[in-house]
């Protein structure tokens, strides 16, 4: 089939000279020590365990069969363990091609993301593009191999995840530019104290793929909501590559990422519950109490659009995913974050919103789709669901925790303070763990010694209720809060407050390793020390 001729942009734009940092979906930032090109072993370097990269001799193609190699995913089995070490993305994809006529991981899809992809095509800016490539067997719904790489450097940084059916976890691999293929750990290591939050797990906090802008309108991604037009890409080799011309839209990537999150986390929790006890309890239960990672969600409307209203993302106000989808609570059915566009535009102007790449480009206004904010992560919510489903914790316990400071779905100081009461281990008997009761008892014991209105006292008040009574009261509290928010959304003062709160939360996110690109978040003129919370009456305060 003929390819389309792809036009050169009418205005030449400088190619990115940033080095094209690897795709956010694999966005780890630590770099390996350089390795000799002739080293033909798979290396292992897992931060928290290894002080340097070590060859995995058990995985060598000549290793005796009775040497256990912990890598049995398709990337390891079909490529690395056969002594094939692809030097660039083209070779990596060729290595996965099944020999002629044989079944294999032949189905390939590509996706593109760029924080500059939807900026006007006629402006001068260094643009960089990243791609995610998936490979699957024809009859498999989830791709067993996910690859991320910069679009403009075929021999650049590659990060790769592959599903290991033996241990039911995703293996993480990295090949830095000029370096060797290195195993960086697997899903379970994201939860082990020694390795949690280190290396790849700084970004992949729950050991699963990360697609920050996971849901519609998939800000920054080529999607059905907003495309990355060919005119935005000056480099012929990117623009004319089948990886770009045949790319799919981000709405097709979303179910794959969610599917792997669910599959990997479900398997991890199942594995934990097969033991006699649960160790590393605080990393496991952390999403219930703290914001260990987030997704980014925006309005469905462009910040400079035509619609008379702008919808603020519901996850900014409440963790609807958990309260509605997991607990089945009735939230206000007519709640929507719709605000009059003039109120939103006034707030954007008042607070000096702009996009800047840090090298001279500056554009007044918000991100392409406006009001981009951190919301509870899909992986964290999935973990909460699985912990309840698989009886790591009880429904009632989870709701008792989440109703503490529920108006702050992310970065809740009150809820995070309760994590300390989770014991170091939980015992499992008859298919359920005692973590809920042990944690609750620890809080019950300490609560009388805390001030009135403390998070401990709030939890105890929830915990002491009959579960049906707690559910009923939770619904009433949430609906009262939602009504208060609806009133505030009609006023300029209310919209200004929520804009300030959004910026406060964005700054918390900005301090994490997931904030890798200057154009991801808007700049504002709000004070440096902005630290705000949402109150139950819909107002915003310190």
């Amino acid at each position, binding site marked *: 089939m003929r390819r389309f001729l792809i036009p050169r942009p009418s205005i030449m734009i400088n190619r990115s000279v940033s080095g094209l940092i690897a795709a956010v979906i694999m966005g780890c930032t630590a770099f390996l020590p350089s390795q000799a090109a002739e080293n033909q072993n798979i290396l292992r370097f897992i931060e928290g365990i290894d002080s340097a990269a070590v060859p995995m001799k058990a995985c060598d193609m000549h290793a005796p069969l009775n040497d256990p190699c912990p890598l049995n995913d398709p990337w390891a089995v079909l490529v690395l363990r056969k002594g094939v070490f692809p030097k660039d993305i083209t070779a990596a994809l060729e290595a996965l091609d099944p020999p002629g006529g044989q079944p294999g991981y032949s189905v390939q899809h590509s996706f593109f993301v760029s924080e500059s992809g939807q900026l006007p095509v*006629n402006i001068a800016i260094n643009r960089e593009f990243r791609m995610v490539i998936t490979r699957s067997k024809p009859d498999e719904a*989830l791709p067993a191999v996910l690859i991320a790489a910069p679009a403009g450097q075929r021999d650049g940084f590659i990060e790769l995840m592959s599903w290991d059916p033996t241990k039911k976890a995703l293996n993480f691999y990295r090949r830095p530019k000029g370096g060797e293929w290195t195993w960086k750990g697997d899903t379970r290591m994201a939860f082990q104290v020694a390795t949690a939050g280190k290396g790849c797990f700084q970004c992949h906090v729950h050991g699963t793929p990360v697609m920050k802008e996971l849901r519609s309108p998939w800000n920054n991604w080529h999607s059905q909501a907003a*495309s990355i037009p060919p005119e935005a890409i000056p480099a012929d080799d990117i623009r004319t590559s089948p990886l770009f011309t045949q790319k799919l839209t981000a709405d097709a990537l979303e179910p794959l990422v969610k599917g792997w999150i669910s599959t990997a986390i479900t398997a991890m929790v199942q594995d934990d519950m097969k033991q006699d006890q649960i160790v590393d309890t605080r990393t496991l239960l952390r999403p219930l109490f703290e914001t260990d990672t987030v997704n980014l969600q925006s309005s469905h409307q462009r910040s400079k659009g035509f619609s008379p209203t702008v919808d603020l993302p519901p996850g900014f106000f409440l963790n609807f995913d958990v309260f*509605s989808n997991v607990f089945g609570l009735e939230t206000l059915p007519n709640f929507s974050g719709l605000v009059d566009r003039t109120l939103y535009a006034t707030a954007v102007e008042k607070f000096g919103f702009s996009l800047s790449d840090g090298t001279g480009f500056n554009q007044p206004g918000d991100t392409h789709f406006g009001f981009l904010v951190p919301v509870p992560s899909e992986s964290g919510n999935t973990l909460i669901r699985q912990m309840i489903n698989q009886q790591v914790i009880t429904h009632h316990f989870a709701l008792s925790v989440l109703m503490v400071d529920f108006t702050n779905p992310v970065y809740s100081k009150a809820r995070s303070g309760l994590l300390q009461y989770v014991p170091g281990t939980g015992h499992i008997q008859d298919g359920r763990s005692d973590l809920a009761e042990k944690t609750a008892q620890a809080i019950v014991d300490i609560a009388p010694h805390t001030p009135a209105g403390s998070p401990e006292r709030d939890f105890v008040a929830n915990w002491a209720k009959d579960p049906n009574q707690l559910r009923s009261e939770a619904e009433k509290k949430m609906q009262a809060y939602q009504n208060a928010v609806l009133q505030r959304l009609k006023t300029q003062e209310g919209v200004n407050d929520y804009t300030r709160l959004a910026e406060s939360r964005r700054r918390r996110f900005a301090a994490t390793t997931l904030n890798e690109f200057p154009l991801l978040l808007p700049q504002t003129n709000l004070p440096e020390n902005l630290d705000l919370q949402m109150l139950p009456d819909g107002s915003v305060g310190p």
Partner: protein
Amino acid sequence: MLLTQFDPPAFLDDFTPPQKAAWSAFISQTIDRELTGNTGHHFYNPTETDTTPDVVTTDPPIFWTAFPRLVQVNSPSDRVRWTRADGSREVQDEYCEWSVEREPTTHKITRVTFTSEGPEYWSTLARVNPTKVLDLYRQFVNPNVQSTDLFRNGRYNPRNKWNNSTTGGVMHLIQPNNTLRAEINIAVAASIVRRINGELLTDEQDLINCGQYGQAERFSDPHIGGEINKLARQQTAITIANPVALYIRDLSTAGWVAPDGSNPKDYWQIVRGTPQLGLRAVYEVPPGKGFVVSDITINGNPIEFGAQIADFITIKIIGQACRIGQNIVADQTSCVGQPLFAAVAHPTAAMIDDAVSAPAIHHHR
């Protein structure tokens, strides 16, 4: 080479040869009407203008999610949006509509049927072969359908009781915006390259608001327009590949788990059309498996709504282009009707709720 005639959707064989010719004439006339009304387009009627040997089809095809964006934008949670989307065919406006069947006692879903068949095909078939229409309803919806259910005073009623709800069955599209005419209108209008105040329009929303086609708040229309316009900007001659229709592209079962470990995709079947040109699909677990649709989970959630399945369905049109780089048409330097930055009417959550409680009529431009 000229296309001899437009074939019926998915090359269906419901029509006799003369009736197929009449259908072809209808598609051709619909295209011609749009061509006349749109100055500066890159579109062509392949039965009247040659398709040159450099022809290519869009790869991948132009596709979008079947779940209605308007419902998504106006709903705070997944459960609320699924409930709303399952509540009325009037809100299912992404060229895909569905009906859900449940066990009467457990209320579990046993079958969900999806269609992308345009109403024009059925009104045409009803005029020329009402017996065939009745046969098809009995075959695909319910064997108890009577002629008097479908026809009033000899005229076909597309909103008959077997095709007007999300629980009583579905045969073809009825939502007012879900038509083949709309598809052709969008494709023609979006094939106009627009350069406003020296700036080439590439953004989907800029294009649809400047070109005044379709409905800007859907997934489908802006995306179709954006992809068609991308072709036009390459100075190509564009058309919709024959047979002209909207097709069910695929169901993704990523994250789905069946209780017996079987492949959830096994229960998806294109029952009208072909696997590549799907018009009607059913999701149903065969009897004897020991479980039903609602026992299958999606990322840990049991399937409680047909809309949960719609989240994973994509609908497509197949674009076709030729005379690549040679179809020189001057860019248009103005927008249709209102100035570029005029506000566009935006349905509110109240309108969505009204649509759920009582049918609303939406008019596409």
